[in-house]
């Protein structure tokens, strides 16, 4: 399969991720959209690693997955904490710092 297919899918995934973060109000969905963006980047790493026949990109993906897992863990913990206080995970409700 040509490289451009992978690039195209990656771009599409990233754009969906960005739009999901910017437009959705549900915090859980925002976290999922973030995962989309991570994975679009991962896809690029793997595609190029294969294309150039070097392992560096493949290794990088494991790092990204580990970090993303940690980030999601913290994010979910925060969401639980926020839910306990606000009874909601609507991101627009969390505006206590409004100037």
């Amino acid at each position, binding site marked *: 399969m040509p490289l451009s297919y992978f690039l195209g899918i990656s771009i599409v995934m990233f754009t969906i991720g*960005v739009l999901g*973060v*910017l*437009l959705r*109000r549900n915090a859980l969905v925002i976290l999922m959209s973030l995962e989309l963006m991570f994975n679009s980047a991962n896809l690029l790493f793997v595609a190029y690693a294969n294309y150039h026949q070097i392992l560096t990109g493949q290794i990088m993906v494991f790092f990204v997955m580990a970090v993303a897992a940690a980030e999601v863990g913290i994010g979910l913990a925060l969401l639980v904490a926020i839910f306990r206080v606000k009874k909601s995970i609507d*991101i*627009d409700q*969390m*505006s*206590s*710092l*409004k*100037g």
Partner: protein
Amino acid sequence: MLFQDGFMNSTFSLVPLVFLLPLLGILVNWLIGKYIGEKGIGTVASLATGGSFFVSVLLALALLKDHAGAQVPFLQWISIGSFNLNWVFRVDTLSVTMMLVVSGVGLLIHIYSIGYMHEDVRHQGDPKRFRRFFIFLNLFILAMMLLVTGDNFLVLFVGWEGVGLCSYLLLGFWFEKGEGGIGNAKAAKKAFITNRIGDFGFLIAIFLIFWNFGTLNFGEVFAMVPAIAQSQPGALVAITLFMLLGVTGKSAQIPLYVWLPDAMAGPTPVSALIHAATMVTAGVYLMVRSQALYIATPVAQQVVVWIGALTALLAGLIAVAQFDIKKVLAYSTISQLGFMVAAVGLGAEIAAMFHLVTHAFFKALLFLSSGSVILGMEHGLSAGAHGNAQPHDDPQDMRNMGGLRKNMPVTFVVYLIGALALAGIAPLSGFFSKDEILVAASQGNKAVFLILLFAAFLTAFYMGRQIFMVFFGEARTNAAKNAKESSLLVTIPLMILAVLSVAGGALNLPGKHTLEHWLSSTLEIRHPAEFIWSIAIASFSIAIIAILLAYFIYGKKPLENAKAVDPLSKSLGGAFNLMNKKFLVDEFYQAVVLKPYTKLADFSARVVDQAGIDGVVNGIGSLTTSFSGLLRKLQTGFARTYALSIFIGVVAILVYLLTRI
């Protein structure tokens, strides 16, 4: 340098004791004074001062053998680079003379105070303050000793400030008493602030000396005077005139004399010790000590002469028209200090010192006797309270007295001696010392001579007036009728001082000039004292005439009652009222200095500070607030907005990085 030729007379090294003994007295009274009772406190304080006196006598005896004296180093104080300033005690004939006067008169006043304060604390209703009084007295002796023994201007200045502080503490001793419950505190404040102005002048003089001479040590400064007089005559004039400002403050001369009459708010021993005999002479001492500076500046000398002469005249005129027994003595003190200052200006430092010493005797005597009179009157007030005595009769008002010679014979005799000595009746001490000043004036400045002669006339007149009003005639109030002679503790110091007032002239008798020889090893004698018969006779007869005049006005036909008008006011009319109102100098200062000053302070407080400075500060604050109010709008609180701005930022950075090449 300090240890001259490695030799030091062992007696001279005792000199720190004159300072340390009063310190010990303070500590003892402070720590255990509560438990030793009034007698114990008085004894400790008197012993401390007496010890100082004893050491001073030893020093004087040692000086008889070794005229040069010594500088006794005590502590290293300031050492910056090449500038060294040490606390050194100076023993020479001048400082020892002052030490003898301060501790000698001080000792007598301490003893007197034991009796006087015993009555006074009970009369004022707070016996606990007895201890405080004696601690303050010892503190004063300590500070005064520091002043006269210092070997440089800075140590002298420390003592100078110290005596100022003690003056404040002691004259405001009954700080919650006086007119409206605040009169004494006000008087103390006035004295302190007025002195502050003078001290400011003195401090500037010290700075100028340091700047121009590079040292503050007496010996070094005076040795450099001729060189500086050549190179910077202006600096020398400035130094001497600023120093004179300090002197006018401390020694109560025009224009800063106004605090001394108010200082009579203090207990009478304080008036005698501080405001007559010792502290107020500190200015004269300073000028005599700085003789070298004044010799080199004739301009300053002229100013000094005129200030002294005019003060002597003005204060004498005011004294004539006062009714408060202590106020008369206060103005008399100012007047006599004027004599001394004028003498220094005339180059007759010996005469000034001579008059300083004799004045210390007879003025302390007069003040202490007036205290005895006041005690007697207060006793009469309370004794006559059952009868029809007016409880509000002022025991210090001479109009309320009269005929006291019968009830208080001892006080009367010593008072008479003091008054005659002050009036300049031969052969009492005041005659000789005043005569020397008059001789110096007659040779130096004819106008000043006439002014001083007139001031001497006034002196004899107001003393005569006082004697006749207080002691002769009939008692004008029940208080005077019931007055009682004071106890021995009070009268014995008076008798000793009376003897000194009579015999004090022997210090520098014409023909012998003991004091002059004694001081000649320290001071440069420019005008050896002379005895001119014509002047002596003139001053003597003027004093006699003045006393006779006082007799015809006040003695022959005494005041009929306490409300009677002063006979002098009939003949002098408005002039008497003006003198009685102290020439309205206080009011003049009030209008010319204090009012504008208060206005200025008000202006700076309201306009400069509140509107100006506060306005700028608050303006900056509110500007920041309103500007940050605009910025605040950016903070929407929506996480997605922030995410968008981060996204836009990333895109912008990417665009920049990609298009950079």
